């Protein structure tokens, strides 16, 4: 294998430091192993405890669009309560026990004045926006992995009665979550859901009715909403809400609690729920330094409620229903340490809300305007039956973006896994678009203000898969930032993987520091069979179609995996040669041989990758590009792209554009079977 130019390699690799993740030194590439310990994630998270506002990227951000491609069993027959409880027990690893609401810790309603339901107090509940004395909260079960909490809302009822009893069952290793709900005039003594809800039993709602409530409407940035109402119990020895105490305990870590924790919904009636993490650049990004802000969809319909759209502005508003005026005794919900209203905080929250609303609007109506620049989203939670990319992120549009004259630096986290049974996954580009170009020499790294160029890449950093799209045409004619759709599929979802904890990914790169190398190839093989993805396109990769088209691809031949680039060193004007780099990941697992449904299929227009009969059990990914990926049309408003998509007959296809003329492009893609 050739040893690529280390200087350029380092400049590109600035954000590829994998931190505690073990590096594989067998090859010069980097190795991302499955089974990252939870401690590692905590270490990453704790580093954010101070909640410093992140450094906003220079220039505008990018526009994120797209729906998560997923396959969920969301048309199954409703579960009975007992069936649901059984599934939840299996998914989380613990049962919900019987309990007595009167054993819970009373939720303080300090400085209460007036009478229910119009009373004022220091920390009213957010759900019903009321002070509800006599309500009690308790932790029903807690292990290192699982916590089950119960909350009994009094609703002004008499002794031994409650008006609203709810339980949340959560496994923070695999994300499995279950919600239980009962309403009405309820006794304090609550039977376990596993006993059902028939005559003589506690009147738990049937799962379909709990699902109709749409808990995820609000619980969209994780399983627990940490308003001051329950967070005020943060110093309770036992009955404190997860993520509210700032200590280092498994269920504490207030300032990093829900940045990366997984989230998945168990039970037939909850399979269409999805939770998305919203991110913005510039104003509003400070909200996201400590926690996610979420958005949800149910049955494919994006909701207009949630932490990003409603609770963020609510938490930062000058007044809160039923709450005493903000003060040291009655502090405003957000931000931590702030006791009274701060216009800047509210402005930030509203910026995220506007982003989420735009995403929801576009999600529900593809004809609605695209979300604004810098507004990104990624799905991180869905039903436990869902298969497919556990995470899907869209950077600067799936196939097109809007030209700008300044720097665009878009980073989307593609997630992590700490449980060992959903190991760091197989990440790839499902769609991508150019232009890819670079005018500055390789001596200028892309973090430098003088760098002029563009790239997309998938990489590992701090144990988390990330995708990044960058463009800086400052001082040059406006140009469109490149981007695409990055997906990750967990190894345990891939067919014939015998032990997903024995999977790994090695990164390789081929670098031409000045564009003078007409052809380069590196051996990207590992000792075992592998599935190989083209992950990084940096600088002037593939510019022209002359006697033959420029090519960048990773492929297998003669028992070897090769990452190669070839290009014409005298491209037609106005194109010029310049630095280029291509990156790939070689994914492999012990004793695994990938089962391909399509392998290195080449498209110069629109071809079928997989017929409809097989399309539900495959994952398809880009493995190569050819042609004029530096060029654009119509003032950069039309960019070259390659897209793997579901065709009208439910087959999976690969199309590219443009497909004619000298600036035409081509692409290669492969598909592997999943379980």
């Amino acid at each position: 294998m050739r040893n690529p130019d280390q200087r350029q390699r380092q400049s590109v690799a600035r954000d590829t430091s994998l931190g505690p993740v073990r590096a594989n030194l067998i090859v010069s590439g980097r190795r991302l192993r499955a089974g990252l310990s939870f401690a590692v994630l905590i270490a990453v998270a704790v580093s954010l405890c101070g909640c410093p506002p992140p450094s906003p990227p220079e220039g505008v951000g990018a526009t994120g669009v797209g729906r998560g491609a997923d396959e969920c069993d969301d048309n199954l027959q409703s579960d009975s309560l007992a069936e649901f409880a059984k599934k939840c027990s299996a998914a989380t690893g613990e049962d919900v026990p019987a309990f007595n609401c009167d054993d819970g810790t009373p939720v303080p309603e300090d400085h209460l004045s007036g009478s229910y339901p119009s009373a004022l107090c220091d920390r009213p509940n957010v759900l019903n926006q009321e002070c509800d004395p006599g309500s009690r909260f308790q932790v029903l079960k807690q292990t290192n992995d699982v916590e089950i909490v119960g909350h009994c809302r009094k609703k002004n009822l008499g002794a031994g009665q409650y008006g609203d009893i709810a339980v949340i069952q959560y496994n923070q290793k695999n994300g499995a979550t279950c919600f239980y709900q009962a309403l009405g005039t309820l006794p304090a003594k609550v039977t376990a859901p596993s006993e059902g809800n028939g005559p003589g039993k506690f009147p738990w709602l049937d799962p379909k009715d709990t699902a109709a409530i749409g808990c995820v409407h609000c619980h969209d940035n994780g399983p627990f909403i940490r308003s001051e109402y329950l967070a005020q119990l943060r110093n309770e020895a036992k009955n404190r809400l997860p993520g509210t105490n700032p200590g280092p305990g498994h269920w504490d870590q207030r300032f990093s609690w829900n940045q990366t924790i997984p989230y998945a919904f168990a039970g037939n009636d909850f399979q269409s729920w999805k939770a998305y993490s919203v991110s913005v650049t510039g104003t509003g990004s400070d909200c996201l330094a400590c926690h996610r802000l979420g958005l949800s969809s149910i049955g494919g319909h994006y909701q207009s409620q949630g932490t990003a759209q409603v609770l963020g502005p609510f938490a930062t508003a000058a007044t809160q229903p039923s709450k005493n005026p903000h003060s040291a005794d009655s502090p405003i919900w957000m931000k931590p340490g702030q006791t009274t209203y701060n216009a800047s905080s509210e402005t930030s929250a509203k910026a995220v809300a506007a982003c989420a609303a735009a995403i929801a609007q576009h999600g529900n109506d593809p004809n609605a305007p695209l979300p604004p620049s810098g507004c990104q989203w990624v799905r991180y939670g869905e039903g436990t039956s869902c298969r497919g990319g556990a995470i899907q992120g869209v950077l600067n549009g799936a196939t097109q973006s809007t030209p700008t004259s300044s720097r665009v630096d878009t980073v989307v986290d593609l997630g992590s896994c700490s449980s060992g049974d959903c190991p760091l996954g197989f990440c790839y580009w499902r769609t991508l678009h150019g232009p890819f170009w670079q005018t500055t020499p390789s001596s200028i790294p892309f973090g430098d203000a003088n760098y002029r160029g563009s790239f997309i890449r998938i990489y590992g950093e701090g144990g988390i898969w990330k995708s990044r799209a960058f463009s800086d045409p400052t001082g040059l004619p406006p140009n469109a930032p490149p981007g695409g759709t990055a997906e990750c599929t967990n190894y345990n979802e891939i067919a014939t993987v015998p032990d997903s904890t024995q999977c790994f990914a090695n990164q390789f790169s081929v670098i031409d520091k000045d564009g003078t190398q007409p052809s380069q190839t590196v051996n990207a093989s590992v000792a075992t069979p592998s599935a190989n993805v083209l992950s990084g396109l940096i600088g002037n990769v593939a510019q022209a179609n002359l006697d033959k088209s420029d090519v960048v691809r990773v492929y297998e031949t003669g028992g070897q995996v090769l990452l190669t680039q070839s290009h014409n060193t005298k491209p037609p004007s106005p194109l010029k040669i310049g630095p280029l780099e291509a990156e790939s990941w070689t994914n492999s697992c012990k004793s695994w041989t990938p089962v391909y449904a399509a392998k290195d299929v080449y498209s110069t227009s629109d071809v079928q990758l997989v017929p409809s009969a097989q399309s539900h059990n495959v994952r398809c990914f880009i493995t190569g590009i050819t042609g004029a990926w530096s060029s654009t049309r119509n003032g950069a408003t039309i960019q070259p792209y390659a897209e793997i998509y579901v065709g009208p007959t439910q087959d999976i296809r690969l199309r590219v554009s443009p497909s004619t003329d000298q600036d035409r492009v081509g692409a290669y893609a492969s598909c592997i079977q999943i379980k």
Partner: protein
Amino acid sequence: MTRLKCMSTGLLVSFLAVACFSSRAQSAQARSSKADAVVASEKKYVLDFSGSQDHGVPGGTFQNFAFNLDLNEPMRKISVRRDEKRKDLVATYDYADCTRGQESLLEKPMSGLAPGNSAWVDYVDIEMIPPTQRDLKWTGGVCYGYRKSGGGWHWNLSSTPLTYDSATGRVRARIWVKEANIDALKLVFDYSVPRQSVRTVTITTLPPSTK
């Protein structure tokens, strides 16, 4: 008849309510005078809840209520106590609002609502006593469901904004129903509406022949 559209739910009631309501009132007045000849036979039935606990029936943050139609009296004074079980009015904490997909939750407590008189309902005016909390800003509206005589519930979950009437210090909305053979209605409030008391509901009916 054109349905009035005044402000979206995205606007702050306390900020724009005066101007907006004024606009609504003028529009309504103009339309009303124009329509008088056509709807001379309209009848109004007022449900006056002012004698209730909290001076009204709770609405907002998942508190909704349904009532059957009684066309025998143009004015009914109904005093509702919290948690009272009645056959002519069902006030419930549904854990549901105008979000679609929650219809089953809205219907679940309605089995005890007695049949009412059937009517062609043109529109319904809602008058609410706003929260007493000073400077509270909120947005939201009201949507509805209706029950056909002898049968199931039908839902229109597009909410109509609630607006503040500074002249009377009340929050109001008019929902257009325009449906025949209705014997009961349910008023459903956006979750974002803080709980407040619905003081009166006025149902305007038309003979079926004039619709």
